[in-house]
């Protein structure tokens, strides 16, 4: 695929340093996002560090092969949460990341408080069957994971032999387990978000889902060390630098794509916070000393990261290669610009003139050294705003909003139905994206064809206004055209939340759902983007992150963005192999 050139005007010329929704909310732009220091897992680690959180294994009941259960408890935002992990042997034939799987290497629930023996026992059966189980609101998150068998076995074998794992193998895979689903917000009877969001910290987006994944990561280290120790007959510990390089893998499909369309106020909160952060950074006339000092190291890290980012997909690998090449070419310019007036505005503008991918890469880098300037924006990234139709709005006001925010809905382009449609498969109710046709009934199609709905609305509005006054209300119009109720509701919402609409065709044969996935995953903080198709990807979460026992205000952010390869840290590994902290009970 060709790398998309950015044709938008340099945003430093508009004086406000704020990119317009028409520029940002394109699939090509969203599909180039990188994680930033405002990503949710970064926010979690900062809050854990601030809380001086320290997890403890309150139960560790594993046999020599690592099958059994364990409970890991941690305090966050004033509450105690516990990860209950159940593991069982799994045939290779049954190991699939697809959501239709029915067995996994490990199953997890995040429990509200510390479970007693009865809680653990009663939750075991439903946890093992995941979607087929029923839960109550003591369960806050439900998840499962499969091993990277080759790396897990390699790590165990090496540790049991008194050695550390091969760094290349660690770098290539990047995780000991990968989650294949993380469910929250009331699914299968677990607690609703309204229960979870007890205070501002817990109300942060996907807060407990991120915590669950972080605790699963701790569990994977403990499990590998446990099995190796049982094999060796002595305590075995994975070196700290290797632990930090290992994240949790995640296989993600289309399930998260419609979320972005169905939660426009929340999407707006995420993107607007990011854009506000960028605007603040770019408005700096001179680089702060700390940012200026950190800049060369950040550029080096990004260069290393791009070079090490190898994935099997040919087209995506070529795209990464183009980005790496563009970055290396521009790196001297970025190095010099940091000492010039309005350094980051110039850096972003220069990157923008090269490619969308380079622009988004440099945004992540530009935000990184500016914590004191932008971290407060994390408080604006939650939104529980719903969508309520305002019937007293005049048609003139509605038309003005359409002109402002939906000019991209070209009637010539969107007059005909889309070639594709989004629907929900009977297999675990998962969204899918397929060629549209008569085999779909109207109630099968998810209403993600916003552009076409807007075009149809505009056509009926024009007819209506030929014979009626623009001062008439939306309610009056809807009496004659009730089919437009949903889209009018949405248009009204977008007038307030302009970054809440993906301004692109979501039902075209050219639509790449993977762009929506990458956008959402970047807000989670995922890296190692490794698409397996344009509908499904693997990523890593928490790669490069400090472990629980290392978390302090200083370490929570250190070296996190674009983590360096373990071979860069090889010297450190040898020094730290004796470092065993928070050991698993024997």
């Amino acid at each position: 695929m060709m790398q998309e050139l950015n044709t938008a005007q340099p945003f430093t010329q508009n004086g406000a340093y704020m990119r317009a929704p028409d520029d940002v909310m394109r699939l090509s732009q969203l599909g180039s996002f990188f994680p930033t220091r405002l990503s949710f897992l970064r926010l979690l680690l900062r809050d854990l560090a601030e809380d001086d959180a320290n997890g403890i294994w309150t139960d560790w009941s594993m046999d020599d092969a690592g099958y059994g259960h364990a409970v890991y408890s941690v305090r966050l935002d004033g509450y105690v949460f516990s990860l209950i992990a159940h593991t069982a042997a799994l045939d290779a034939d049954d190991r699939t990341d697809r959501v239709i799987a029915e067995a996994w290497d490990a199953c997890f629930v995040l429990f509200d408080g510390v479970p007693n023996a009865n809680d653990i026992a009663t939750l075991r059966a439903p946890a093992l069957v995941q979607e087929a189980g029923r839960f109550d609101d003591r369960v806050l998150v439900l998840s499962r994971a499969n091993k990277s068998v080759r790396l897990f076995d390699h790590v165990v074998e090496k540790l049991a032999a008194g050695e550390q794992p091969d760094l290349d193998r660690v770098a290539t895979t990047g995780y000991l387990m990968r989650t294949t689903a993380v469910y929250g917000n009331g699914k299968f009877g677990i607690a609703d978000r309204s229960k979870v969001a007890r205070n501002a910290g817990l109300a942060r987006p996907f807060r407990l889902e991120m915590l669950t994944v972080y605790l699963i990561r701790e569990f994977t280290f403990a499990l590998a060390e446990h099995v190796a120790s049982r094999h060796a007959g002595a305590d075995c510990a994975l070196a700290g630098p290797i632990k930090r390089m290992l994240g949790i893998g995640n296989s993600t499909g289309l399930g998260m794509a419609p979320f972005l369309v169905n939660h426009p106020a929340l999407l707006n909160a995420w993107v607007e916070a990011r854009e506000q952060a960028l605007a603040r950074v770019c408005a700096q006339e001179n680089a702060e000393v700390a940012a200026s000092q950190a800049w060369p190291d950040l550029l080096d890290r990004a260069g290393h990261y791009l070079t090490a980012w190898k994935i099997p997909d040919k087209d995506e690998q070529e795209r990464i290669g183009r980005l790496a090449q563009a970055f290396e070419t521009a790196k001297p310019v970025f190095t010099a610009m940091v000492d010039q007036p309005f350094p980051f505005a110039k850096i972003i503008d220069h990157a923008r003139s090269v490619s969308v991918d380079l622009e988004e890469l440099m945004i992540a880098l530009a935000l990184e050294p500016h914590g004191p300037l932008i971290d407060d924006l994390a408080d604006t990234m939650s939104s529980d705003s719903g969508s309520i139709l305002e019937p007293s709005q005049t048609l003139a006001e509605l038309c003005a909003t359409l002109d402002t925010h939906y000019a991209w809905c070209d009637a010539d382009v969107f007059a005909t139905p889309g070639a594709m449609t989004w629907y929900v498969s009977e297999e675990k109710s998962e969204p899918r994206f397929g060629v549209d046709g008569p085999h779909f009934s109207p109630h099968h199609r998810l209403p993600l064809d916003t552009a076409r709905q807007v075009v149809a609305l505009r056509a009926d509005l024009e007819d209506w206004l030929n014979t009626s006054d623009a001062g008439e209300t939306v309610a009056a119009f809807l009496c004659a055209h009730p089919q437009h109720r949903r889209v009018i509701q949405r248009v009204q919402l977008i007038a307030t939340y302009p970054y809440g609409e993906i301004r692109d065709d979501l039902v075209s044969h050219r639509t790449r759902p993977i762009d929506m996935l990458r956008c959402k995953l970047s807000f989670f903080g995922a890296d190692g983007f490794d698409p397996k198709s344009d509908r499904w990807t693997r990523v890593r979460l928490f790669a490069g992150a400090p472990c629980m026992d290392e978390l302090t205000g200083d370490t929570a952010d250190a070296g996190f963005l674009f983590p360096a390869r373990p071979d860069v840290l090889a010297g450190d590994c040898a020094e730290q192999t004796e470092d065993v902290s928070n050991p698993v009970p024997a």
Partner: protein
Amino acid sequence: MTTVDLSRNEFLSTVQKACVGAGSDSALAADIANACLELEAAGLASLAHLLPLLEAAAHLPARMAAQPYAHSQNGFFTHEVVMLRNGASAMDHLCLATLTVAQCDDLVLLAALIVSGCRARGRFARIIAPGIPWAHLDHAYVVTAPERLVGPITVRFVPVEDHAALGLPPLPARLSVGMAHWAALKAAADAVLVPANDTTRLRDAGAGLNDND
């Protein structure tokens, strides 16, 4: 009666899917789901009201979405399951005028639609109807309605400053729903699902088949 314990989100999303499966658009389906939650808050079995309407809709050739829509100066005249759409429009009109619905299949659910719409908007409606299936009159909250009632029902918008003072019960965080009703609702919700096969798994989900690494 055996019941099932549900999260609020689970209840709302399943009602929405069932309504979409019966032909409703997604915005109306969301309104109906909130109306059902309003009924549950009042201690009424919402699915006893909703399921017959969904059943009726499923047997109408044109289904809910395509039904004609009647409106005149005298109010909305509803028939069959069209009341659900009209109920939503009734909410829309609450700010504008007194509204009279001459007849509909389930005034209790219609009233719930109006009440939930008002709750979401921070406004309130005064509902006047024979038998008072669900009425808020001078803060009185009466839920002693017959199961099904034929109109007319008159709704008058009443602005209020203090929403809580009207005595609306809090929306339930958890719901206990009869197992039979829940099974019927889930079956109705399944209408939105599309059968899968190996081709669609690979092509439309885009997933691989071997994940051992």
